[in-house]
């Protein structure tokens, strides 16, 4: 038996009557890039958010490098929440709405968590922040306030903020969906670099072109379940289930209209 890098075991999550996750299991190897696709409301976000316990599942387990993430008890002890924080720091999360901190300038956005969580001193954090901001192409914006950045710049800032924690896994929830079409490319090119650097990633997206080019695997979800998964070629060209066929058709029609 080989040890999986990331292992999701039988995740269940309900919101009232709505089943957001229904027995979802997934194994991810180190360096794997997995794209998650599926219709709106099928549980993609809930799945990503269960991985870093932002939305704790009702049932099921998440294992990262052989350690179990999170605890199902509703009130965490101080020890448990410390442990959870250290797991979260290892899993960078990027949101559709960027969620950069508007009261901090670009540099401070990238410095803050390094000081609070990684306990680095200010000088150390700033050196690292400057390096990463340069990598995402924001070196000329370090003193800028988020309000003055474009969507693409905000998202790159959000990615930089995560990368500063030296994550071993990145969770990206529709990172380009809120962007004007002409700004999508700059974010995708940052993601491409991450892929080339061997980062393990779970990416929810509707950018099928990007997914087919850079994905090791595509996971198709519907109704809170994983319906099909496999290499991009197989999933996109020869879908097995009716549901995936219909989803791909709809997506093609909409992207054609645009």
């Amino acid at each position, binding site marked *: 038996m080989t040890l999986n890098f990331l292992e999701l075991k039988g995740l269940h999550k309900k919101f009232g009557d709505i089943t957001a996750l229904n027995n979802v299991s997934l194994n991810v190897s180190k360096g794997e890039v997995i794209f998650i696709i599926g219709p709106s409301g099928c549980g993609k976000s809930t799945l990503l958010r269960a991985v870093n316990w932002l939305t704790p599942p009702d049932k099921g387990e998440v294992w990262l490098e052989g350690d179990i993430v999170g605890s199902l008890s509703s009130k965490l002890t101080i020890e448990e929440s410390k442990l959870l924080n*250290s*797991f979260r720091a290892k899993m960078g999360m990027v949101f559709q*709405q960027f969620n950069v901190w508007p009261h901090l300038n670009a540099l401070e956005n990238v410095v803050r968590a390094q000081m609070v969580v990684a306990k680095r001193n200010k000088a150390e954090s700033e050196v690292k922040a400057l390096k990463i901001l340069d990598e995402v192409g924001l070196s000329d914006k370090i003193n800028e306030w988020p309000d003055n950045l474009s969507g693409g710049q905000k998202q790159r800032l959000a990615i930089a903020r995560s990368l500063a924690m030296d994550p071993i896994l990145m969770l990206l929830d529709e990172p380009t969906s809120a962007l004007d079409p002409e700004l999508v490319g700059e974010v995708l090119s940052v993601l491409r670099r991450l892929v080339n650097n061997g980062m393990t990633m779970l990416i929810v997206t509707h950018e099928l072109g990007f997914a087919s080019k850079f994905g090791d695997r595509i996971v198709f979800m519907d109704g809170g379940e994983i319906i099909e998964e496999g290499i991009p070629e197989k999933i996109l060209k020869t879908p097995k289930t009716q549901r995936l066929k219909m989803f791909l058709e709809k997506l093609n029609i909409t992207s054609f209209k645009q």
Partner: protein
Amino acid sequence: MKFDISYIIDALPRLFEGALITLQVAILGFCLSLILATTITIARTSLNSKIFNTIIAFYISFIRGTPLLVQIFLIYYVLPVFGLNLGPFSSGIIAITLNSAAFVTEILRGGLASVPNGQFEAAKSLGVSGVALWRKIILPQTFIASIPPLVNEFTMVLKATALLSVITVVELMRVSQQIYSANYHPVEVLSATFVIYFLMCFVVSRSSAILENKLKVKRA
């Protein structure tokens, strides 16, 4: 009776002393009120306890549904019953604090509501939680969003301190009363008092605009 400005000039030094006490009471009361209201706000969000929230809701509606004057008297006479002989100054501060905190809690509720949930989530996803989450990420945004109503509340507190004269706190209003009951020139003395209160409030509300502009400039 004619308006004799010399009574004002004679009264000014003592009125200024009184104004100083007024400022002290207002600043101290307001700072304590900010601390109390911030604590309540954090507890309300993170405890998520029905009992706690109900207690706070009662506290706020009692404070808002009764005259401050009654609250001041009540605290002044109730505290000694519990063996707390704090004197008028401290009792006054407590009354002002308890009163203002109810309003500040409501203001901060609004400020907090303007902070999107994604701000909490981004912080948590990086491993920032507990005190740091509030101190470094959420509260700064809450306070920035609350500046205008908070400054307004401070002017309310500043004006409300005049009521503390009834429990013999020697602030501006009390000093003013002492002067005119000795010289029998209430019109001159009260006019001066009126202007001093107005100037204090005016400066404070102007500072709101300056503070806001400064933060906007910082971001623009």
